Protein backbone atom coordinates (compact mmCIF):
# COMPACT_ATOMS: atom_id res chain seq x y z
CA UNK A 1 0.00 0.00 0.00
CA UNK A 2 2.65 2.59 0.86
CA UNK A 3 4.31 1.50 -2.39
CA UNK A 4 1.05 2.23 -4.17
CA UNK A 5 0.81 5.72 -2.56
CA UNK A 6 4.33 6.49 -3.63
CA UNK A 7 3.45 5.33 -7.13
CA UNK A 8 0.36 7.51 -7.25
CA UNK A 9 2.31 10.47 -5.88
CA UNK A 10 4.89 9.95 -8.58
CA UNK A 11 2.13 9.64 -11.12
CA UNK A 12 0.58 12.86 -9.90
CA UNK A 13 3.85 14.66 -10.04
CA UNK A 14 4.40 13.31 -13.49
CA UNK A 15 0.98 14.33 -14.65
CA UNK A 16 1.42 18.08 -14.74
CA UNK A 17 -1.48 18.34 -16.98
CA UNK A 18 -4.11 18.24 -14.55
CA UNK A 19 -2.43 19.77 -11.53
CA UNK A 20 -5.43 21.03 -9.62
CA UNK A 21 -7.74 18.07 -9.91
CA UNK A 22 -4.98 15.80 -9.45
CA UNK A 23 -3.87 17.77 -6.48
CA UNK A 24 -7.35 17.63 -5.15
CA UNK A 25 -7.60 14.06 -5.87
CA UNK A 26 -4.28 13.49 -4.30
CA UNK A 27 -5.08 15.50 -1.29
CA UNK A 28 -8.30 13.64 -0.85
CA UNK A 29 -6.45 10.45 -1.42
CA UNK A 30 -3.80 11.48 1.10
CA UNK A 31 -6.47 12.37 3.52
CA UNK A 32 -8.13 9.08 3.00
CA UNK A 33 -4.83 7.41 3.36
CA UNK A 34 -4.03 9.37 6.49
CA UNK A 35 -7.46 8.61 7.83
CA UNK A 36 -6.97 4.99 7.02
CA UNK A 37 -3.53 5.13 8.49
CA UNK A 38 -4.86 6.65 11.70
CA UNK A 39 -7.63 4.09 11.79
CA UNK A 40 -5.19 1.28 11.19
CA UNK A 41 -2.98 2.74 13.85
CA UNK A 42 -5.88 2.84 16.23
CA UNK A 43 -6.78 -0.66 15.26
CA UNK A 44 -3.16 -1.73 15.74
CA UNK A 45 -3.05 -0.09 19.16
CA UNK A 46 -6.38 -1.66 20.06
CA UNK A 47 -5.06 -4.92 18.74
CA UNK A 48 -1.91 -4.54 20.84
CA UNK A 49 -4.10 -3.76 23.82
CA UNK A 50 -6.21 -6.79 23.14
CA UNK A 51 -3.08 -8.88 22.64
CA UNK A 52 -1.77 -7.67 26.03
CA UNK A 53 -5.08 -8.49 27.66
CA UNK A 54 -5.11 -11.82 25.94
CA UNK A 55 -1.61 -12.61 27.12
CA UNK A 56 -2.57 -11.60 30.64
CA UNK A 57 -5.71 -13.69 30.38
CA UNK A 58 -3.71 -16.56 29.05
CA UNK A 59 -1.31 -16.31 31.95
CA UNK A 60 -4.17 -16.29 34.39
CA UNK A 61 -5.69 -19.20 32.62
CA UNK A 62 -2.43 -21.13 32.92
CA UNK A 63 -2.33 -20.36 36.61
CA UNK A 64 -5.90 -21.42 37.03
CA UNK A 65 -5.14 -24.59 35.14
CA UNK A 66 -2.29 -25.33 37.52
CA UNK A 67 -4.52 -24.60 40.50
CA UNK A 68 -7.16 -26.75 38.92
CA UNK A 69 -4.68 -29.61 38.64
CA UNK A 70 -3.89 -29.29 42.35
CA UNK A 71 -7.58 -29.20 43.17
CA UNK A 72 -8.08 -32.24 41.01
CA UNK A 73 -5.26 -34.11 42.80
CA UNK A 74 -6.74 -33.12 46.15
CA UNK A 75 -10.12 -34.21 45.03
CA UNK A 76 -8.74 -37.57 43.90
CA UNK A 77 -7.07 -38.06 47.26
CA UNK A 78 -10.27 -37.14 49.08
CA UNK A 79 -12.23 -39.46 46.92
CA UNK A 80 -9.90 -42.35 47.66
CA UNK A 81 -10.01 -41.60 51.37
CA UNK A 82 -13.73 -41.44 51.27
CA UNK A 83 -13.86 -44.78 49.49
CA UNK A 84 -11.69 -46.32 52.18
CA UNK A 85 -13.78 -44.80 54.95
CA UNK A 86 -16.91 -46.05 53.32
CA UNK A 87 -15.39 -49.52 53.22
CA UNK A 88 -14.44 -49.33 56.88
CA UNK A 89 -17.80 -47.98 57.82
CA UNK A 90 -19.38 -50.83 56.03
CA UNK A 91 -17.37 -53.44 57.93
CA UNK A 92 -18.10 -51.60 61.21
CA UNK A 93 -21.74 -51.70 60.37
CA UNK A 94 -21.51 -55.43 59.73
CA UNK A 95 -19.63 -55.93 63.00
CA UNK A 96 -22.19 -53.85 64.84
CA UNK A 97 -24.86 -56.03 63.41
CA UNK A 98 -23.12 -59.12 64.76
CA UNK A 99 -22.65 -57.45 68.14
CA UNK A 100 -26.25 -56.51 68.27
CA UNK A 101 -27.17 -60.08 67.54
CA UNK A 102 -24.79 -61.35 70.24
CA UNK A 103 -26.05 -58.80 72.71
CA UNK A 104 -29.51 -59.99 72.17
CA UNK A 105 -28.43 -63.53 72.94
CA UNK A 106 -26.49 -62.28 75.98
CA UNK A 107 -29.56 -60.54 77.20
CA UNK A 108 -31.46 -63.78 76.90
CA UNK A 109 -28.76 -65.65 78.76
CA UNK A 110 -28.59 -62.94 81.42
CA UNK A 111 -32.26 -63.25 81.94
CA UNK A 112 -31.85 -67.00 82.44
CA UNK A 113 -28.94 -66.39 84.85
CA UNK A 114 -30.97 -63.90 86.83
CA UNK A 115 -33.70 -66.48 87.25
CA UNK A 116 -31.14 -69.08 88.35
CA UNK A 117 -29.62 -66.54 90.73
CA UNK A 118 -32.93 -66.03 92.46
CA UNK A 119 -33.08 -69.77 93.11
CA UNK A 120 -29.49 -69.78 94.39
CA UNK A 121 -30.20 -66.85 96.71
CA UNK A 122 -33.00 -68.84 98.26
CA UNK A 123 -30.72 -71.85 98.74
CA UNK A 124 -27.99 -69.57 100.12
CA UNK A 125 -30.29 -68.23 102.80
CA UNK A 126 -30.97 -71.77 103.95
CA UNK A 127 -27.28 -72.63 103.79
CA UNK A 128 -26.34 -69.55 105.82
CA UNK A 129 -28.70 -70.57 108.60
CA UNK A 130 -27.16 -74.06 108.53
CA UNK A 131 -23.67 -72.55 108.55
CA UNK A 132 -24.48 -70.38 111.53
CA UNK A 133 -25.76 -73.42 113.41
CA UNK A 134 -22.58 -75.36 112.54
CA UNK A 135 -20.39 -72.43 113.53
CA UNK A 136 -22.04 -72.35 116.96
CA UNK A 137 -21.42 -76.07 117.23
CA UNK A 138 -17.81 -75.55 116.20
CA UNK A 139 -17.31 -72.86 118.81
CA UNK A 140 -18.62 -75.20 121.49
CA UNK A 141 -16.31 -77.93 120.24
CA UNK A 142 -13.41 -75.51 120.16
CA UNK A 143 -13.99 -74.61 123.79
CA UNK A 144 -13.94 -78.30 124.64
CA UNK A 145 -10.78 -78.66 122.59
CA UNK A 146 -9.11 -75.79 124.42
CA UNK A 147 -9.86 -77.49 127.72
CA UNK A 148 -8.61 -80.84 126.39
CA UNK A 149 -5.47 -79.18 125.10
CA UNK A 150 -4.90 -77.52 128.42
CA UNK A 151 -5.13 -80.83 130.20
CA UNK A 152 -2.82 -82.39 127.60
CA UNK A 153 -0.30 -79.61 128.18
CA UNK A 154 -0.68 -80.17 131.89
CA UNK A 155 0.03 -83.88 131.39
CA UNK A 156 3.18 -83.07 129.45
CA UNK A 157 4.21 -80.65 132.16
CA UNK A 158 3.68 -83.14 134.98
CA UNK A 159 7.08 -84.81 134.79
CA UNK A 160 8.92 -81.56 135.07
CA UNK A 161 6.58 -80.23 137.72
CA UNK A 162 6.82 -83.42 139.79
CA UNK A 163 10.56 -82.94 139.86
CA UNK A 164 10.12 -79.30 140.76
CA UNK A 165 7.70 -80.21 143.56
CA UNK A 166 9.93 -83.01 144.80
CA UNK A 167 12.75 -80.59 145.56
CA UNK A 168 10.91 -78.29 147.99
CA UNK A 169 9.24 -81.30 149.65
CA UNK A 170 12.64 -82.92 150.16
CA UNK A 171 14.05 -79.68 151.53
CA UNK A 172 11.09 -79.28 153.91
CA UNK A 173 11.76 -82.77 155.25
CA UNK A 174 15.40 -81.94 155.83
CA UNK A 175 14.79 -78.54 157.47
CA UNK A 176 12.06 -79.86 159.74
CA UNK A 177 14.22 -82.90 160.55
CA UNK A 178 17.06 -80.58 161.49
CA UNK A 179 14.72 -78.63 163.79
CA UNK A 180 13.57 -81.88 165.42
CA UNK A 181 17.19 -82.93 165.90
CA UNK A 182 18.04 -79.57 167.46
CA UNK A 183 15.14 -79.89 169.88
CA UNK A 184 16.04 -83.48 170.70
CA UNK A 185 19.64 -82.49 171.27
CA UNK A 186 18.20 -79.92 173.71
CA UNK A 187 19.92 -77.04 171.99
CA UNK A 188 19.06 -74.04 174.08
CA UNK A 189 19.64 -71.47 171.36
CA UNK A 190 16.18 -70.93 169.86
CA UNK A 191 17.48 -68.93 166.87
CA UNK A 192 18.99 -72.01 165.22
CA UNK A 193 15.71 -73.93 165.42
CA UNK A 194 13.69 -70.98 164.18
CA UNK A 195 16.09 -70.59 161.23
CA UNK A 196 15.53 -74.20 160.16
CA UNK A 197 11.76 -73.80 160.45
CA UNK A 198 11.81 -70.53 158.49
CA UNK A 199 13.71 -72.26 155.70
CA UNK A 200 11.07 -74.98 155.77
CA UNK A 201 8.30 -72.36 155.51
CA UNK A 202 9.98 -70.84 152.47
CA UNK A 203 10.04 -74.22 150.78
CA UNK A 204 6.38 -74.77 151.68
CA UNK A 205 5.38 -71.53 150.00
CA UNK A 206 7.46 -72.47 146.96
CA UNK A 207 5.60 -75.77 146.65
CA UNK A 208 2.25 -74.05 147.26
CA UNK A 209 2.97 -71.59 144.49
CA UNK A 210 3.64 -74.37 142.02
CA UNK A 211 0.49 -76.25 142.96
CA UNK A 212 -1.79 -73.22 142.96
CA UNK A 213 -0.42 -72.20 139.59
CA UNK A 214 -1.18 -75.63 138.19
CA UNK A 215 -4.68 -75.53 139.65
CA UNK A 216 -5.42 -72.15 138.09
CA UNK A 217 -4.08 -73.33 134.79
CA UNK A 218 -6.10 -76.54 134.68
CA UNK A 219 -9.38 -75.03 135.86
CA UNK A 220 -12.08 -74.66 133.18
CA UNK A 221 -12.57 -71.04 134.18
CA UNK A 222 -15.07 -68.79 132.41
CA UNK A 223 -13.19 -66.90 129.74
CA UNK A 224 -13.03 -63.43 131.21
CA UNK A 225 -11.05 -60.55 129.80
CA UNK A 226 -8.98 -58.12 131.76
CA UNK A 227 -6.01 -55.84 131.14
CA UNK A 228 -2.91 -57.92 131.73
CA UNK A 229 0.78 -57.06 131.34
CA UNK A 230 2.45 -59.18 128.67
CA UNK A 231 5.56 -59.57 130.82
CA UNK A 232 3.48 -61.25 133.54
CA UNK A 233 1.99 -63.72 131.05
CA UNK A 234 5.39 -64.71 129.74
CA UNK A 235 6.96 -64.96 133.17
CA UNK A 236 4.17 -67.15 134.53
CA UNK A 237 4.46 -69.46 131.52
CA UNK A 238 8.21 -69.62 132.00
CA UNK A 239 7.84 -70.40 135.69
CA UNK A 240 6.00 -73.63 134.83
CA UNK A 241 8.61 -74.57 132.25
CA UNK A 242 11.75 -73.34 133.97
CA UNK A 243 12.84 -76.63 135.50
CA UNK A 244 12.50 -78.54 132.24
CA UNK A 245 14.32 -75.86 130.28
CA UNK A 246 17.08 -75.61 132.87
CA UNK A 247 17.73 -79.35 133.02
CA UNK A 248 17.90 -79.49 129.23
CA UNK A 249 20.40 -76.60 129.31
CA UNK A 250 18.16 -74.45 127.14
CA UNK A 251 19.13 -70.82 127.41
CA UNK A 252 16.08 -68.54 127.55
CA UNK A 253 16.26 -64.79 126.97
CA UNK A 254 13.32 -62.44 127.31
CA UNK A 255 13.58 -58.96 125.87
CA UNK A 256 10.39 -56.94 125.99
CA UNK A 257 12.04 -53.56 125.74
CA UNK A 258 11.46 -50.65 128.10
CA UNK A 259 7.67 -50.49 127.57
CA UNK A 260 5.22 -52.54 129.61
CA UNK A 261 2.68 -53.56 126.97
CA UNK A 262 -0.72 -54.35 128.45
CA UNK A 263 -3.16 -56.50 126.51
CA UNK A 264 -6.83 -57.07 127.09
CA UNK A 265 -7.24 -60.80 127.39
CA UNK A 266 -7.51 -63.93 129.40
CA UNK A 267 -4.38 -64.51 131.45
CA UNK A 268 -4.69 -68.29 131.53
CA UNK A 269 -5.38 -68.63 127.83
CA UNK A 270 -2.49 -66.36 126.91
CA UNK A 271 -0.25 -68.25 129.32
CA UNK A 272 -1.24 -71.43 127.56
CA UNK A 273 -0.17 -69.91 124.24
CA UNK A 274 3.33 -69.36 125.58
CA UNK A 275 3.49 -72.76 127.30
CA UNK A 276 2.56 -74.43 124.01
CA UNK A 277 5.14 -72.42 122.07
CA UNK A 278 7.82 -73.02 124.71
CA UNK A 279 7.04 -76.75 124.74
CA UNK A 280 7.44 -76.88 120.97
CA UNK A 281 10.67 -74.90 121.13
CA UNK A 282 11.95 -77.15 123.93
CA UNK A 283 11.41 -80.25 121.75
CA UNK A 284 12.75 -78.54 118.63
CA UNK A 285 16.13 -77.66 120.15
CA UNK A 286 16.60 -81.09 121.82
CA UNK A 287 19.16 -82.26 119.25
CA UNK A 288 20.69 -78.87 118.43
CA UNK A 289 24.29 -78.02 119.26
CA UNK A 290 23.17 -74.66 120.63
CA UNK A 291 19.95 -74.69 122.62
CA UNK A 292 18.39 -71.28 122.98
CA UNK A 293 14.94 -69.72 123.00
CA UNK A 294 14.54 -65.99 122.55
CA UNK A 295 11.36 -64.08 123.30
CA UNK A 296 11.37 -60.51 122.03
CA UNK A 297 8.49 -58.08 122.08
CA UNK A 298 7.87 -54.54 121.00
CA UNK A 299 4.77 -52.36 121.11
CA UNK A 300 3.84 -49.93 118.38
CA UNK A 301 0.71 -48.24 117.06
CA UNK A 302 -1.85 -50.01 119.19
CA UNK A 303 -0.42 -53.52 118.93
CA UNK A 304 2.33 -55.60 120.43
CA UNK A 305 4.43 -57.98 118.40
CA UNK A 306 6.08 -60.91 120.13
CA UNK A 307 8.62 -63.11 118.41
CA UNK A 308 9.53 -66.48 119.90
CA UNK A 309 12.57 -67.87 118.15
CA UNK A 310 14.42 -71.14 118.74
CA UNK A 311 17.67 -72.60 117.48
CA UNK A 312 16.04 -75.90 116.58
CA UNK A 313 15.73 -77.84 113.33
CA UNK A 314 13.06 -75.49 111.92
CA UNK A 315 9.86 -76.44 110.12
CA UNK A 316 10.13 -78.41 106.86
CA UNK A 317 9.11 -76.20 103.91
CA UNK A 318 5.46 -76.56 102.98
CA UNK A 319 4.33 -77.38 106.51
CA UNK A 320 4.19 -73.76 107.74
CA UNK A 321 0.45 -73.64 107.13
CA UNK A 322 -0.41 -77.14 108.25
CA UNK A 323 1.22 -76.86 111.66
CA UNK A 324 -1.77 -74.86 112.93
CA UNK A 325 -4.21 -77.63 111.89
CA UNK A 326 -5.71 -79.65 114.74
CA UNK A 327 -4.09 -83.07 115.27
CA UNK A 328 -1.22 -82.25 112.93
CA UNK A 329 2.06 -83.23 114.55
CA UNK A 330 5.54 -84.12 113.40
CA UNK A 331 6.38 -85.60 116.76
CA UNK A 332 6.48 -89.36 117.32
CA UNK A 333 3.26 -91.15 118.21
CA UNK A 334 2.55 -90.58 121.87
CA UNK A 335 4.83 -87.56 122.10
CA UNK A 336 2.51 -84.82 120.85
CA UNK A 337 -1.24 -84.41 120.66
CA UNK A 338 -1.11 -82.15 117.62
CA UNK A 339 -3.47 -79.82 119.45
CA UNK A 340 -1.03 -77.31 120.91
CA UNK A 341 -0.59 -75.04 117.92
CA UNK A 342 -4.21 -75.25 116.77
CA UNK A 343 -5.34 -74.19 120.24
CA UNK A 344 -2.70 -71.47 120.25
CA UNK A 345 -4.00 -70.27 116.90
CA UNK A 346 -7.59 -70.28 118.20
CA UNK A 347 -6.71 -68.33 121.34
CA UNK A 348 -4.74 -65.68 119.46
CA UNK A 349 -7.56 -65.30 116.94
CA UNK A 350 -10.08 -64.98 119.76
CA UNK A 351 -7.97 -62.15 121.16
CA UNK A 352 -8.13 -60.32 117.84
CA UNK A 353 -4.53 -61.11 117.04
CA UNK A 354 -2.55 -63.06 114.46
CA UNK A 355 0.07 -65.77 114.64
CA UNK A 356 2.41 -66.88 111.90
CA UNK A 357 5.62 -68.80 111.60
CA UNK A 358 8.80 -68.16 109.68
CA UNK A 359 11.36 -70.90 109.24
CA UNK A 360 14.14 -70.05 106.79
CA UNK A 361 16.04 -73.19 105.71
CA UNK A 362 18.97 -73.98 107.99
CA UNK A 363 17.63 -71.85 110.84
CA UNK A 364 15.25 -72.41 113.71
CA UNK A 365 11.59 -71.46 113.68
CA UNK A 366 10.27 -68.06 114.72
CA UNK A 367 6.65 -67.68 115.79
CA UNK A 368 5.30 -64.16 115.38
CA UNK A 369 2.34 -63.11 117.49
CA UNK A 370 0.55 -59.82 117.01
CA UNK A 371 -1.94 -58.78 119.68
CA UNK A 372 -3.90 -55.55 120.03
CA UNK A 373 -2.96 -53.48 123.07
CA UNK A 374 -5.56 -52.69 125.71
CA UNK A 375 -6.76 -49.15 125.13
CA UNK A 376 -5.53 -46.96 128.00
Amino acid at each position, binding site marked *: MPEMATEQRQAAVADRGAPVTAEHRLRAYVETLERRLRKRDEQRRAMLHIMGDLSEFNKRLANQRKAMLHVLADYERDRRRLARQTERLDSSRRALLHILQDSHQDKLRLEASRKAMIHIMGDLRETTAEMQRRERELRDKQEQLVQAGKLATLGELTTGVA*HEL*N*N*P*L*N*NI*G*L*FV*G*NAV*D*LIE*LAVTEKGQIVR*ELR*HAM*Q*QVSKATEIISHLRTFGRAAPVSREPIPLRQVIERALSLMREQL*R*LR*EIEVTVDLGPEEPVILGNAIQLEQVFINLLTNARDAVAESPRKAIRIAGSARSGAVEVALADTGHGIPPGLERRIFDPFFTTKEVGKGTGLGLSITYGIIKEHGGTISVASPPGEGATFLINLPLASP
Partner: protein
Amino acid sequence: MMTPLSVLIVDDDPALLQALPQALRLRMGGVTVETADSAAAALARIAVQDYDAIVTDIKMPGMDGLALLAEIRTRRPDTPTLIITGHGENELVVRALRGGACDFIQKPIDRGYFVAALYRAIWAHVQNRKAKDRQLALTSCAEELERIVEKLDRQPGAVPGRAGS
Protein backbone atom coordinates in the same frame (compact mmCIF):
# COMPACT_ATOMS: atom_id res chain seq x y z
CA MET B 1 39.28 -91.46 164.01
CA MET B 2 41.60 -88.63 164.76
CA THR B 3 41.09 -86.22 161.83
CA PRO B 4 37.50 -84.97 161.39
CA LEU B 5 35.60 -86.41 158.43
CA SER B 6 35.19 -84.14 155.40
CA VAL B 7 32.28 -84.50 152.98
CA LEU B 8 31.52 -82.61 149.75
CA ILE B 9 27.87 -82.15 148.73
CA VAL B 10 27.11 -81.22 145.09
CA ASP B 11 23.63 -79.95 144.13
CA ASP B 12 22.21 -77.07 142.09
CA ASP B 13 19.42 -76.35 144.60
CA PRO B 14 20.63 -73.69 147.10
CA ALA B 15 18.00 -74.72 149.68
CA LEU B 16 19.26 -78.29 149.68
CA LEU B 17 22.81 -77.01 150.12
CA GLN B 18 21.59 -75.32 153.30
CA ALA B 19 19.49 -78.17 154.68
CA LEU B 20 21.65 -81.21 154.03
CA PRO B 21 24.96 -79.98 155.50
CA GLN B 22 23.12 -78.91 158.64
CA ALA B 23 21.54 -82.38 158.91
CA LEU B 24 24.98 -83.98 158.57
CA ARG B 25 26.52 -81.66 161.14
CA LEU B 26 23.74 -82.49 163.59
CA ARG B 27 23.83 -86.23 162.98
CA MET B 28 27.55 -86.77 162.41
CA GLY B 29 29.33 -84.85 165.10
CA GLY B 30 32.50 -83.13 164.01
CA VAL B 31 32.01 -83.62 160.29
CA THR B 32 33.24 -80.91 157.94
CA VAL B 33 30.75 -80.36 155.12
CA GLU B 34 31.58 -78.36 152.02
CA THR B 35 29.18 -77.62 149.17
CA ALA B 36 29.41 -77.04 145.42
CA ASP B 37 26.49 -75.81 143.29
CA SER B 38 27.72 -77.42 140.07
CA ALA B 39 29.82 -80.30 138.82
CA ALA B 40 32.46 -77.86 137.60
CA ALA B 41 32.72 -76.26 141.05
CA ALA B 42 32.96 -79.75 142.59
CA LEU B 43 35.85 -80.71 140.29
CA ALA B 44 37.67 -77.54 141.31
CA ARG B 45 37.20 -78.51 144.98
CA ILE B 46 38.40 -82.12 144.64
CA ALA B 47 41.50 -80.92 142.79
CA VAL B 48 42.69 -79.25 146.00
CA GLN B 49 41.18 -81.52 148.63
CA ASP B 50 40.80 -85.22 149.22
CA TYR B 51 37.34 -85.74 150.76
CA ASP B 52 36.27 -88.75 152.75
CA ALA B 53 33.08 -88.88 150.69
CA ILE B 54 31.28 -86.99 147.93
CA VAL B 55 27.49 -86.77 147.64
CA THR B 56 26.09 -85.51 144.33
CA ASP B 57 22.66 -84.92 142.83
CA ILE B 58 22.13 -86.78 139.57
CA LYS B 59 20.12 -84.14 137.63
CA MET B 60 22.04 -80.93 137.22
CA PRO B 61 22.34 -78.51 134.34
CA GLY B 62 25.68 -78.59 132.57
CA MET B 63 27.63 -81.65 133.64
CA ASP B 64 25.21 -84.03 135.38
CA GLY B 65 25.89 -86.32 138.35
CA LEU B 66 26.80 -89.32 136.17
CA ALA B 67 29.45 -87.36 134.26
CA LEU B 68 30.79 -85.94 137.52
CA LEU B 69 30.97 -89.48 138.94
CA ALA B 70 33.06 -90.59 135.96
CA GLU B 71 35.41 -87.63 136.49
CA ILE B 72 35.76 -88.41 140.21
CA ARG B 73 36.54 -92.05 139.37
CA THR B 74 39.51 -90.94 137.23
CA ARG B 75 40.77 -88.11 139.48
CA ARG B 76 40.07 -89.53 142.92
CA PRO B 77 39.43 -93.25 142.37
CA ASP B 78 39.44 -94.01 146.12
CA THR B 79 36.88 -91.39 147.21
CA PRO B 80 33.48 -93.03 147.82
CA THR B 81 30.72 -91.24 145.88
CA LEU B 82 27.02 -91.34 146.73
CA ILE B 83 24.30 -90.31 144.27
CA ILE B 84 21.05 -88.51 145.12
CA THR B 85 18.24 -89.47 142.74
CA GLY B 86 14.61 -88.54 142.32
CA HIS B 87 11.93 -91.09 143.07
CA GLY B 88 11.52 -93.80 140.43
CA GLU B 89 14.67 -93.00 138.49
CA ASN B 90 15.70 -96.65 138.58
CA GLU B 91 17.48 -96.61 135.29
CA LEU B 92 19.69 -93.74 136.44
CA VAL B 93 20.41 -95.58 139.72
CA VAL B 94 21.61 -98.64 137.82
CA ARG B 95 23.80 -96.49 135.58
CA ALA B 96 25.25 -94.70 138.61
CA LEU B 97 26.06 -97.97 140.41
CA ARG B 98 27.66 -99.39 137.26
CA GLY B 99 29.60 -96.15 136.93
CA GLY B 100 31.20 -96.76 140.32
CA ALA B 101 28.86 -95.04 142.80
CA CYS B 102 29.08 -96.78 146.13
CA ASP B 103 25.45 -96.10 147.06
CA PHE B 104 22.36 -94.08 146.12
CA ILE B 105 19.92 -92.00 148.16
CA GLN B 106 16.40 -91.34 146.92
CA LYS B 107 14.58 -88.08 147.38
CA PRO B 108 12.83 -87.23 149.64
CA ILE B 109 15.94 -87.96 151.68
CA ASP B 110 15.52 -90.01 154.83
CA ARG B 111 18.20 -88.52 157.08
CA GLY B 112 18.74 -91.67 159.11
CA TYR B 113 19.24 -93.72 155.99
CA PHE B 114 21.41 -91.06 154.45
CA VAL B 115 23.73 -90.78 157.44
CA ALA B 116 23.95 -94.55 157.71
CA ALA B 117 24.79 -94.88 154.03
CA LEU B 118 27.40 -92.17 154.32
CA TYR B 119 29.00 -93.81 157.38
CA ARG B 120 28.96 -97.15 155.66
CA ALA B 121 30.63 -95.70 152.60
CA ILE B 122 33.25 -93.88 154.60
CA TRP B 123 33.85 -96.89 156.83
CA ALA B 124 34.26 -99.14 153.80
CA HIS B 125 36.59 -96.56 152.33
CA VAL B 126 38.61 -96.37 155.54
CA GLN B 127 38.73 -100.15 155.84
CA ASN B 128 39.77 -100.34 152.27
CA ARG B 129 42.49 -97.80 152.85
CA LYS B 130 43.62 -99.62 155.95
CA ALA B 131 43.71 -102.93 154.10
CA LYS B 132 45.71 -101.28 151.36
CA ASP B 133 48.08 -99.71 153.87
CA ARG B 134 48.53 -103.08 155.58
CA GLN B 135 49.03 -104.78 152.32
CA LEU B 136 51.66 -102.21 151.42
CA ALA B 137 53.33 -102.67 154.79
CA LEU B 138 53.18 -106.43 154.41
CA THR B 139 54.66 -106.23 150.94
CA SER B 140 57.54 -104.11 152.17
CA CYS B 141 58.02 -106.47 155.15
CA ALA B 142 58.11 -109.45 152.81
CA GLU B 143 60.60 -107.67 150.59
CA GLU B 144 62.72 -106.79 153.62
CA LEU B 145 62.61 -110.42 154.76
CA GLU B 146 63.62 -111.65 151.33
CA ARG B 147 66.55 -109.26 151.32
CA ILE B 148 67.66 -110.51 154.75
CA VAL B 149 67.38 -114.10 153.66
CA GLU B 150 69.46 -113.37 150.58
CA LYS B 151 72.10 -111.63 152.72
CA LEU B 152 72.27 -114.57 155.09
CA ASP B 153 72.56 -117.01 152.22
CA ARG B 154 75.61 -115.13 150.94
CA GLN B 155 77.30 -115.36 154.42
CA PRO B 156 77.55 -119.04 155.22
CA GLY B 157 78.17 -119.65 158.82
CA ALA B 158 76.56 -116.45 159.93
CA VAL B 159 73.53 -118.32 160.95
CA PRO B 160 74.54 -121.37 162.95
CA GLY B 161 71.57 -123.48 161.99
CA ARG B 162 72.11 -122.98 158.26
CA ALA B 163 75.82 -123.92 158.14
CA GLY B 164 76.52 -127.02 156.16
CA SER B 165 72.96 -127.44 155.12
